[in-house]
């Protein structure tokens, strides 16, 4: 069975551009979580989706947004990219809300220049 898959694996964007990151959860998992792992800042919670709805949001500006599709896959969109957005973006999924066993993807490495 496939694990959590994220695409693309690496991405280079210019400041001010927009980017879309994609995540496919493990089959049967309805909850998807997004985290940012920036150098020196650790892992920061971004967004949580369950059953197509945004359930919780971390302390990030509105230019970070996303959605979850009927097949439970998810997109993370970042508008007006800033240099500080350079980070590894990790997606995780869990069978149900509660996240007591979240499975993480390999991440998307975003570099903003």
């Amino acid at each position: 069975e496939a694990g959590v898959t994220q695409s693309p694996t690496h991405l280079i964007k210019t400041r001010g551009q927009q980017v879309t990151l994609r995540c496919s959860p493990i089959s049967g998992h309805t909850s998807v979580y997004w985290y940012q792992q920036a150098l020196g800042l650790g892992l920061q919670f971004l967004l949580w989706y369950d059953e197509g709805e945004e359930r919780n949001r971390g302390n990030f500006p509105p230019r970070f947004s996303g959605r979850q599709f009927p097949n439970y896959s998810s997109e993370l969109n970042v508008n007006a990219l800033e240099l500080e957005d350079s980070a590894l973006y990790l997606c995780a999924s869990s069978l149900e809300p509660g996240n007591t066993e979240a499975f993480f993807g390999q991440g998307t490495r975003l570099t903003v220049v």
Partner: protein
Amino acid sequence: AQSVTQLDSQVPVFEEAPVELRCNYSSSVSVYLFWYVQYPNQGLQLLLKYLSGSTLVESINGFEAEFNKSQTSFHLRKPSVHISDTAEYFCAVIAVNDYKLSFGAGTTVTVRA
């Protein structure tokens, strides 16, 4: 809100020596506790978790952690490390009523022969 403090950012250790990674948390509500491991250029993998019951939890690869409510700690230990244990280790908590993982800053373990 919850917070997690990992007291050591870097832990060098010789092969077959014991290792302890310290984790303290703060929360005004009950929490679940987790240790995740991140091998180089990979996503996070769940190592072990404490939800309830016995305060000592074990992983399949020899790690163990003990939940100490009075000291609000969840330290990770392994009596004898291998080169393959070289990785970054993250302590994390979820408030029982929140479902959002809060991570510590991580501890990099480097095992040398």
